[in-house]
């Protein structure tokens, strides 16, 4: 600092009003408001009543039965199958969207816009009535196959856009280098472009997977038998027989068992991707 002629007091006053000091003051006010809110919740909420509505201990015990395990397993199986189906279809749609063949582009665009625009639950309802509309149309691996296809059809529309973005993020020079080595377009896409594209879109795709875990709760409209219940349906059935919300809350918490590890993995992958760059 250059020697200044300003008196000591003026320097002190300037210090007190520095941007850093003002930021500290603002932060302190925010903390105080948060603390007050927390205090209000603790003081005014009736813990016992809340527990009676949402988490009755005896019903928690009743929910945590073998049925919950089956439902958890079903949710996982529905999600994984739908993800694989959606990924395959989404990749095809993404490639069609980027194709030089115009009708492929149109078809893909129509598909993506339709399934992204229409509520998933309506798609599932329609899908449930498919055997009625087209007699003899049976999806194998019932009930899993039906769920995989129904859920996957919708997921593919979202994934296609993600994968398309990933393909376009691969530098043009990569394709040129592959073609200059004599690779045909299809081989270059498959061996050079797609591996890099999937590496780029792994974090967003994992996010799609998390969304899919939760969307699997909509498949109840397909009309599944008790052995095919996933978490939400299982919780709902039990909630209506016991006339209490506890089973649904427990089922809801079970989703976290699936989604929290996935979230963690995404964070790790994003951190790694940053390092690699």
């Amino acid at each position, binding site marked *: 600092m250059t020697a200044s002629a300003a008196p000591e007091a003026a320097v002190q006053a300037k210090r007190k009003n520095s941007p850093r000091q003002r930021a500290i003051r603002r932060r302190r006010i925010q903390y105080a408001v948060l603390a007050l809110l927390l205090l209000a919740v603790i003081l005014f909420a009736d813990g016992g009543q809340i527990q009676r509505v949402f988490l009755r201990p005896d019903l928690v015990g009743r929910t945590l039965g073998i049925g919950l395990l089956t439902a958890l397993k079903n949710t996982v199986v529905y999600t994984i199958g739908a993800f694989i189906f959606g990924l395959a279809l989404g990749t095809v749609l993404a490639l069609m969207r980027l194709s030089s063949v115009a009708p492929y582009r149109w078809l893909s665009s129509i598909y993506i816009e339709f399934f992204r625009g229409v509520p998933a639950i309506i798609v599932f309802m329609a899908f449930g009535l498919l055997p009625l509309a087209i007699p003899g149309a049976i999806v194998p691996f019932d009930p899993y196959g039906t769920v995989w296809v129904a859920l996957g059809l919708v997921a593919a529309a979202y994934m296609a856009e993600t994968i398309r973005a990933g393909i376009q993020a691969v530098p043009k*020079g990569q394709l040129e*280098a592959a073609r200059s*080595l*004599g690779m045909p377009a299809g081989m270059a896409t498959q061996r050079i472009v797609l591996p890099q594209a999937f590496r780029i879109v792994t974090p967003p795709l994992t996010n799609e997977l998390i969304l899919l875990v939760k969307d699997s709760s909509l498949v109840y409209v397909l009309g599944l038998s008790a052995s095919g219940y996933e978490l939400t349906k299982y919780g709902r059935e039990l909630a209506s027989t016991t006339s209490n919300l506890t089973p649904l809350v427990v089922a809801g918490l079970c989703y976290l068992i699936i989604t929290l590890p996935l979230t963690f993995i995404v964070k790790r992958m994003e951190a790694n991707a940053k390092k690699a760059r």
Partner: protein
Amino acid sequence: MTQTTIPTGRREDEIQIYDLHKSFGPVEVLKGISTIIHRGEVVCVIGPSGSGKSTLLRCVNLLEQPTKGRIFVLNDEITDEDADVDAIRTKMGMVFQQFNLFPHLTVLANCTIAPISVLKQSKATAEATARDNLAKVGLAERGDAYPAQLSGGQQQRVAIARALSMSPELMLFDEPTSALDPELVGDVLSVMRDLAKTGMTMMVVTHEMAFAREVADRVIFMDGGVIVEEGPPDEVIGNPQNERTRTFLRRVLDPTHVDTGAEDQAYAERHAGHPSPDAEGQLPASGRDA
């Protein structure tokens, strides 16, 4: 000038370019390029930026689709609509300014993926060839590394090894040292010098005048989408006949020489749409009648 048959049919005329035109939208980048590159010849293409020299090189292996004109590689017409372009490309290696190594593959896999998948070589054969070529470019030890772990100069040498692993008959270089830090340029140029000594046919777009003068058999000076002057390096670089060549070389060889007026004028001339008479309708060079 009387033209012989197109193509000449002579095996030593490895690249034949006839009246090549290329437009990007309304901008005509190549305005009738004709030349023949012979087996074992090292041809350096020089010229100011925007002169179309990279586009010319990229047209040769059809990374750019010519608007008009014909190109023959090893007497196969790559501009023929029914040509097996992929098969023709396996015979010419290409090295890019930005290296374009495959980042998801190791150095060795970069060099073997095309021989294995395109030429159907066995993994063992392809790896043996790749290791040979990596040794040639001084990177025998780095086969297991990934491109991101290498310096720019090393990456470009891997790119050369990758192209050589297809055992091409000729090599195209698109400003191979332009993206490199100055201290890394030398290694890449020395690899290219060694390659030239083995008798490889090379077409090199470059700004390295010293390299062109030392290694090239022929220098092509391009400006405004036409070949302005071509011949042995001692003539084109050492004693240029055309005023545009002289202006360009003066600026390149003495970068401290600032002559904004001349540069702007040169630019205006290039884009005025009046190619100079000496370039208009230029016919194929007869090559050197050695």
